[in-house]
């Protein structure tokens, strides 16, 4: 087998967690299938990044050039297509992140590689590759067989695999960039940082998260009152921010904030993995949802399967009585 390649995701000089997760999972797959892990780094002044993952892969391929200073799907695609054509790795893994979602489908299509996205597990049997992925709002899992080929590309969900220590000493291969200029058809301009609001939900021990189950903006007052009565702050899932009912800095999740309160109460939130990514570190998780099959109950310690409009006023009273 011609190896497992892992694209290292980094931004503003930080290696992103997903890279360590992919490296650890990649090493396990490599061990099971008697092959090796190669990390691929595109960047500018990459010494520190290379150093940090030296122990995590058998080989590191580095394209160090100013054109890779910022991630640019189109520039990265040119370089990676060139590398993959030459090396023909059995498996090329990318994180299912804003970075991977902007790159993988176009790159795999250009190379005519069988690919799929947002995988939670990979099974390799002979030359067959099967993956597990979720569908229908996370309510069902699917087993998917990829078209048989000598080379595949997948994106993997963040948080599905644990990062791990390793004591390898990677062979480092520096390659010249096949691109010398960022193509005119897509230019990176700048990063825009999130603006801080009046409430920092990452600082509170008690967070009450509200989701689309609240139905109408006017109903939020009830949640505000409940949160205040228990000394907590109100946070929310994405649709509440999309509708402009709460500011963006209240959003919990992959494209919002990561919180680790002592208590998180998710109310009328289904538990999409993008939301869970922001709250699974809470010490105690309570879910209140009328749908017993909502994925949030896979994450919660305690659950109430009921109508939130019935539960919240009573719960507020019961807690006040303590």
């Amino acid at each position, binding site marked *: 087998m011609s190896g497992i390649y892992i694209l290292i995701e980094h931004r503003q000089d930080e290696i992103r967690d997903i890279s360590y997760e992919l490296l650890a999972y990649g090493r396990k797959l490599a061990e099971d299938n008697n092959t090796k892990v190669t990390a691929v780094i595109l960047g500018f002044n990459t010494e520190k990044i290379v150093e940090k993952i030296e122990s995590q892969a058998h080989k590191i391929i580095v394209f160090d050039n100013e054109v890779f200073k910022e991630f640019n799907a189109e520039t990265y695609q040119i370089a990676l297509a060139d590398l993959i054509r030459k090396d023909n790795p059995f498996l090329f893994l990318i994180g299912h992140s804003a970075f991977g979602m902007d790159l993988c489908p176009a790159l795999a299509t250009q190379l005519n590689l069988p690919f799929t996205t947002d995988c939670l597990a990979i099974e390799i049997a002979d030359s067959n590759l099967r993956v597990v992925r979720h*569908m229908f709002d996370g309510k069902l899992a699917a087993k998917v067989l990829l078209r048989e080929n000598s080379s595949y590309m997948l994106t993997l969900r963040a948080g599905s695999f644990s990062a791990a220590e390793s004591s390898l000493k990677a062979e480092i291969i520096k390659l010249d960039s096949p691109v010398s200029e960022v193509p005119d058809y897509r230019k990176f301009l700048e990063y825009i940082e999130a603006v801080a609001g009046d409430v920092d939900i990452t600082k509170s021990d008690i967070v009450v998260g509200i989701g689309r189950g609240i139905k109408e903006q006017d109903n939020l007052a009830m949640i505000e009152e409940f949160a205040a009565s228990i000394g907590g702050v109100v946070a929310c899932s994405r649709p509440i921010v999309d509708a402009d009912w709460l500011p963006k800095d209240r959003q919990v999740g992959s494209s919002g904030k990561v919180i680790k309160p002592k208590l998180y109460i998710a109310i009328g939130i289904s538990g999409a993995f993008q939301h869970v990514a922001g709250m699974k570190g809470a010490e105690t998780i309570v879910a209140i949802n009328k749908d017993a099959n909502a994925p949030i109950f896979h994450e919660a310690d305690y659950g109430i399967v009921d109508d939130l409009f019935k539960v919240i006023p009573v719960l507020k009273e019961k807690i006040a009585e303590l």
Partner: protein
Amino acid sequence: MDIIVCIKRVPQTAEAEVKIDSTGKDIEKDRLTFDMNESDTYALEEAALMKEKFGGEITVISLGDEDAEETLRIALAKGADNAIRIKAEDFDELDAFQTSQILKSVIKDLSYDIIFTGCISTDDAYSQIGLTLAELLEIPHAALVIDFDANEDRADVQRELEGGLIEHLDVALPALFTIQTGINEPRYASLIAIRRAAKKEIQVIGKDELAQSEFISNSTLEKLYVPPISKQVEILDGTAAESSAKLAGIIKDKGLL
């Protein structure tokens, strides 16, 4: 400025009971409601906003069964000028790659400066059809767009990254953009617009009319199953008063307040 928007009709499963059907590869659909895929509603609105600014025509396109025409009519009522349905019933099961190729075979002959798709379909959850389509059409792309503006030949785009960070880009047109929810405030269709849309013609394209007849599949769905439970939740049952009392007790005992 001509704009194409790819629209998918999807079952609404967030609050519904989802049952696997007898084939083991799909869900029972008879008791589910269907609607325009969430991010596609934002893609359509973005197209409508661009049309207000620049003029031109919006064409909405959906690969779907006859019911998809209902969703396309909603799009016509919300500002689309033309609607195309590619007959899904002419094909066996399609994977995301085949869907992309079929969409490409029709879109390649249309006039466009911008193509918008949603960033994810809530049923298949691939987040891949937009970019695959862009690559097949050999045009640039940007995924997860949360702010968009354009002039005649360039687009000024903001992409959403993790943790609230945004990437600001400049992209040459024609290009494809996958639209993230929250980018705008999708409009409601007025009753007059709905009535007018009911009379508009939807162009229906069958497999025979496509330039290409073979579409390579990348993957086969072998089976669906209920994901195993990773963490055992303790369900507090009873009436609202009972479950709430139990929860209040636990919160107190664990010293969580």
